[in-house]
């Protein structure tokens, strides 16, 4: 029973990881870019959600929507300011990494100056009520997080599989040159990818804020690094890999804390990362070259 309870908690944590990692994968798939500022976009999402709840007194769904829209805009601005000029100049492989580290630092510093370095939290009514399912306990917030994450994952699946823009995204991930030859406006696809990925990251930020009531300008740092680990475990650029990888990591972390010690919490994720690199560098889903299906 304890095991099942831990499993539920792990899946809940993992589903938020998955949302962040999907964004990472989408961006990596199209641009071959490790977007180290993605964790900070996640952090900004949490603050937007918090602001909407505290100042506009909206419900959780509207807060998610605010964060999604706000972060989508932020993502587009980041692409235009920090990445597009580098591509125009055919910068090296490392220049975009420097740029993304700069963006991450900038967002962190601005957030610290605006909101202070201390942890803040959502009002207590967002903790939800305890629901008993047989011998298991879940809160309504946990169910909300699970529901939202899985609906969004399904939406991502439908979007990339069946819509025109989703297909354009996949084509660009396969090869930007060929996509361009086929008449796809790759620049539009890239902007769209940033908007979409950042919106998912923002939603994940609010969800994590609901679940753990600990929002601070530095909450994105570990998420940035974990996002990279998850993406690699799932297969670089594979969105389904990101989903599965996120869930695995969430469960492993919760089990580690539950059965071993909390100080080992992150050890397994990175051990898993190194093992994957050595044994199966293309990841669980061998979409190493592209955001394939």
């Amino acid at each position: 029973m304890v095991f099942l309870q831990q499993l539920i908690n792990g899946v809940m944590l993992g589903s938020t990881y998955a949302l962040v990692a999907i964004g990472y994968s989408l961006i990596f798939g199209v641009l071959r870019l490790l977007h180290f500022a993605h964790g900070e976009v996640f952090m900004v999402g949490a603050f937007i959600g918090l602001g909407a709840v505290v100042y506009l007194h909206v419900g959780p769904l509207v807060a998610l929507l605010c964060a999604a829209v706000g972060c989508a805009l932020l993502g587009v601005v980041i692409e235009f300011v920090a990445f597009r000029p580098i591509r125009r100049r055919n910068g090296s492989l490392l220049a975009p990494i420097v740029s993304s580290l700069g963006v991450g630092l900038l967002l962190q510093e601005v957030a610290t100056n605006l909101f202070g370095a201390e942890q803040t939290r959502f009002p207590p009514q967002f903790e939800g009520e305890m629901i008993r399912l047989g011998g298991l306990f879940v809160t309504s917030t946990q169910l909300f997080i699970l529901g939202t994450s899985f609906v969004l994952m399904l939406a991502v699946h439908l979007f990339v599989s069946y819509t025109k823009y989703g297909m354009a995204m996949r084509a660009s991930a396969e090869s930007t040159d060929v996509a361009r030859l086929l008449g796809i406006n790759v620049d539009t696809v890239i902007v769209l990818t940033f908007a979409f990925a950042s919106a998912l990251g923002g939603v994940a930020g609010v969800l994590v804020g609901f679940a753990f009531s600990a929002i601070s300008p530095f909450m994105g740092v570990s998420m940035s690094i974990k996002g990279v680990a998850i993406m690699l475990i799932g297969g670089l650029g594979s969105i389904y890999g990101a989903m599965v990888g996120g869930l695995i990591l969430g469960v492993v972390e919760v089990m580690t804390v539950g059965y071993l010690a909390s100080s080992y919490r992150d050890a397994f994720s990175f051990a898993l990362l190194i093992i994957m690199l050595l044994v199966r560098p293309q990841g669980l889903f061998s979409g190493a070259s592209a955001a394939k299906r």
Partner: protein
Amino acid sequence: MFNSYTESLAVFFGINVLMAFSVYLPSSAGLISLGQGGFMAIGAYTSALLTAKDVPFALALAAGAAVAALIGVLVAAPAVRIRGIYLIIATLGFGEIVRILFINLEFAGGASGLSGIRPLTTLWYVVGVCFFVGLCLWRLRTLTLGRAILAVHEDETAAEAMGIKLLQTKLIAFGGGAAIAGLAGGLFAHYALFIDPEQFGFSRSAEAFLFVVLGGSGNPLGPVIGAAVVTLLPEVLRFLQDWRMSFFAVLLIGCAIWRPGGLVAARPPSRL
């Protein structure tokens, strides 16, 4: 001659120069590392634990560098097969694992860190080590090994066809970088007098990486200039108060756009 503020600034600048060198050496063989903070931690803890047992400082520093180099070679042996972005991710993962390991090592103080380290690092010690390492790196460029490293960086297949031992060259470059980071860690520990695993996390590794990319990885002077900019600029920008790091971040983005090759442009060493 120096007041304590400028002295500590100079010491930390010297340590940063060493960290920049530790990224520069492997990067000149095409091995980009985002995990040098891990090697710095290994050097810092090893030497601090040794001087606590009354081992002479120089010996403890060397031991820290040696342990870091050994672990660097062990890590790199399987890892040099992977390239580019995969290697960056692998080193990032390694840095995190080292940090988590030290959090769980009870005899090294665990998460609360190691305090009461003896104040053995002096400014002249740091200056001496910096010059020694810098000279070695400068000299290396015209030696057979240095040229082999450069050849591996330019084109692995061609280098191998010329009879250069690929694995050996890469391992020396990576192990050497790890040793330099270990030295930097040892000097840091005996100046800061308190170390904990969080000081050697991702931000430390990313900083060291930035020194090199900002300064330029063409010759050993680039990393020094990169380290100077990153260390001294926040001090110069003090008048901006709370916004100085934001300004610095904007500067980073600007450099990535307008100076992607670094502040000191790459120029290969003279022909044979």
